[in-house]
């Protein structure tokens, strides 16, 4: 046990030196840190509860996604039935319904049934690598085509939507200009957004909570307001409510179902001011396809009204005074500069493929975080010093060995956390303090065992030898159970608890190394050099 070949001493010393070296950057101020060589630029991250910032958990509205999916398939069906080679090529259909999550329609001419199905086959594809199609196409009663989304197709659709939702949220959050936001998918239908150092989460929520599905649609001029109030509208139109605070008295508009132009055809959006009223507005410009459609429609409908619809709510419904030819427009509503800016960012980054709702929010102000760090550091230092003094009083020389090992242990934990870019959270600081206790425990076990063996009349060398080997077994078993507990915390825990588990796990591993191996090296060196005949422990 106490035989330490030179290579072992050297490799242990190298590990300890590296530990100290790589723990240093985490204590340096930002400016000094940045001037370090790049391989040294790894430091412990501070969790949101220490650095301050916002943690948001967003959940997708899967029902909304299904509806969108169905609507877009309906469009695809209608487009596919309009043949490419002019009116002769059209397939007449009717009684299209989307009830029960399925698309069902009648093919008027039975002879075209197979042709219709073939056209739909080319519009529906396999769902990823499952080998299944994303829609099943069945013929019912020899006249109807029924399309049902497959479960593989739906799973794939959710996964695709979540990937693109993550990217869009990423764009939006980055547009805020905050430092190092984290945006990751979690589980099937969730996205975690963490933005450190943010003071006002309201703006963030405003920004990422908006689906930003923008549509320009014509107001139905034939709709009778009284009839519409009773819920009856002309065929091809629907009632769309005004957004909160808009419409100056009116609560809804009757709009044509057909979308004249949509947010996908935007190339730019930015906050600006209305030249007449000086109110904040969002200026948008369309791509070439959008511009020509917009020009054509506005030219045909001078004197009528169109509506700007955002996320299913009407923002405003201005009259078309003259054809709008430049391919740009202004979205007006009761905006503040901040909300207009948020909308512009949302429009630029594209519409979310699915509605997202905030289901969990945790925000800590940077001041509270700084206060926690300060108090945690003070507590850590006092606790460490108290334990160090106590160990010397109780174990003398071996207490000093344990103390040196403890200091190395702290350096190693920080170095490893920095290397893995791990996050230190507030419970993590508690984990740190606890690790100090646990590291000391290993030395307590060893030293008590040495005391016992000395009492039994063993000579110094043997007492130390047996003390280490007998205590190691209990230390190992005891620490495995701690690793099990920490592992479960990491697996199940969220944010701060994960941070605690990380510190605990790293601490357990390093403390076994420092408290057992490193102190044994010191003890072996002492035995070799001074060949003691008695030991005060």
């Amino acid at each position: 046990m106490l035989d330490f070949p030179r290579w072992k001493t050297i490799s242990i010393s190298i590990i300890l030196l590296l530990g100290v070296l790589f723990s240093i950057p985490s204590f340096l101020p930002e400016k000094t840190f940045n001037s370090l060589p790049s391989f040294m630029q790894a430091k412990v991250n501070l969790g949101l509860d220490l650095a301050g910032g916002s943690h948001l958990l967003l959940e997708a509205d899967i029902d909304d996604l299904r509806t969108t999916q169905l609507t877009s398939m309906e469009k695809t069906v209608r487009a596919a039935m309009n043949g490419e080679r002019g009116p002769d090529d059209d397939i007449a259909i009717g009684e299209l319904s989307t009830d029960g999550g399925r698309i069902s329609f009648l093919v008027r001419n039975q002879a075209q049934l197979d042709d219709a199905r073939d056209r739909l086959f080319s519009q529906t594809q396999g769902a990823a690598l499952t080998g299944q199609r994303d829609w099943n196409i069945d013929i019912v009663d020899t006249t109807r085509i029924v399309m049902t989304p497959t479960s593989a197709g739906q799973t794939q659709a959710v996964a695709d939507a979540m990937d693109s939702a993550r990217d869009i949220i990423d764009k939006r959050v980055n547009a805020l200009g905050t430092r190092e936001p984290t945006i990751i998918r979690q589980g099937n239908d969730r996205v975690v957004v963490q933005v450190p150092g943010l003071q006002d989460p309201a703006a963030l929520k405003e920004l990422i909570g908006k689906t930003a599905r923008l549509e320009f649609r014509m107001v139905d001029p034939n709709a009778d307001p009284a009839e519409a109030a009773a819920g009856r509208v002309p065929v091809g139109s629907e009632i769309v409510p005004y957004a909160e605070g808009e419409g100056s008295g009116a609560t809804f508009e009757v709009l044509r179902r057909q979308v004249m132009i949509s947010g996908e055809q935007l190339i730019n959006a930015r906050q600006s001011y209305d030249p007449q009223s000086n109110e904040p507005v969002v200026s948008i410009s369309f791509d070439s396809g959008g511009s020509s459609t917009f020009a054509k429609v506005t030219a045909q409908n001078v004197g009528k009204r169109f509506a700007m619809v955002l996320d299913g709510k009407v923002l405003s419904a201005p009259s078309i005074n003259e054809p709008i030819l430049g391919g740009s427009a202004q979205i007006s509503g009761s905006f503040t500069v901040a909300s207009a800016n948020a909308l512009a960012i949302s429009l630029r980054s594209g519409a979310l493929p699915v509605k997202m709702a905030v289901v969990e929010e945790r925000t800590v102000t940077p001041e509270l975080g700084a206060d926690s760090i300060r108090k945690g550091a003070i507590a850590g230092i006092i606790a460490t010093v108290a334990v160090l003094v106590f160990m010397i009083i109780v174990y003398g020389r071996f207490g000093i060995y344990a103390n040196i090992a403890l200091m190395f242990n702290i350096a190693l934990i920080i170095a490893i956390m920095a290397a893995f870019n791990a996050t230190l959270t507030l419970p993590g600081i508690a984990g740190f303090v606890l690790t100090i206790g646990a590291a000391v425990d290993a030395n307590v076990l060893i030293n008590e065992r040495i005391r016992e063996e000395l009492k039994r009349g063993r000579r110094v060398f043997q007492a130390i030898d047996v003390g280490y080997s007998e205590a190691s077994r209990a230390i190992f078993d005891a620490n495995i159970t701690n690793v099990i507990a920490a592992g479960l915390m990491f697996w199940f825990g969220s944010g701060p608890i994960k941070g605690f588990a990380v510190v605990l796990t790293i601490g357990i591993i390093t403390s076994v190394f420092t408290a057992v191996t490193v102190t044994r090296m010191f003890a072996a060196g002492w035995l070799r050099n001074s060949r003691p005949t008695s030991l005060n422990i």
Partner: protein
Amino acid sequence: MRLLKLVPDDTNIQFLKWRKLAMVISILMIVASIALVAARGLNLGVDFVGGQSVRVEFPQAMPPIDEIRSKVATIGLGEATIQQFGSDKAVSIRTALPEGDKAAADRAGAQLLAGIKTAFPTATTGSVETVSGKVSEELLQTGALSLLLAMVAISIYIWIRFEWQFGAGALFALFHDVALTFGFFALTQMQFDLNIVAALLTIIGYSLNDTIVVFDRIRENLKKYRKMEIIPLLDLSLNETLARTVMTSFTMLIALGVLLWVGPDVIFGFTAAMLLGIFIGTYSSIYMSAPILVWLKVGPDSFVPRTTAGMAGGERVERKDDGAVV
């Protein structure tokens, strides 16, 4: 230099003499804890019941809790739970979230913050936590699951490393520790949140740490003193490890005591739970895990079956003793 000894040499305390009394007390404590949790309930934080919680900090000593409560009641978000932290300058104000759509929940958040701002103009809000009903249900489930899994996984590990009796003893001791900690939270009505689950998992780990050190010594002595009666043997093992148990508990108490005293008040409950856990965990390793071994009839044969390997085991022990003397 004379070194300090917390525990005198060669103690011979007959711990096991009190095992029946200790067991009765422990079982009563467990029952009382369960009854407390059932009667008073736990003061569950937003992590587990959903809702919103705002930490409000006052520049000077804060107004009386009742005044805060009545002012918050006028905001119109139903009854609020006011919880004081370790300091006298900060409270957490908790309200439920309105049922239904997310817009209503968002508005409630803004409403609470604005309401607090008008009621206490000098106060600042340090942190905001909002957890929806669905997420809080999931957190509650995973929290409970992780506690159960930790207890079972660790007991299985001990069963594998030792014997089934030891696993059962450890499981019972763990159940005792967890139940009493729950009882403590029901009694004090301190907020029970995700952090406390982490503290409980740590207590489980720590208590086990202690139990294992004792078990390890029992196993060693069972092999060494094959003729000794089980009760004196357990007493001997407990006495031999007593110095270590006291030393470790004492250093942990120093570290956690400092953390409780000057540490961040945000983790006051977390630290308090762990401090309590150190006491309970130390007690349970001595008075819960060891006596159970008597009742489950652990003996020298538990590790070295008498019939086949008995002689080999005896030889091994002897050789070890020789080796030590040379």
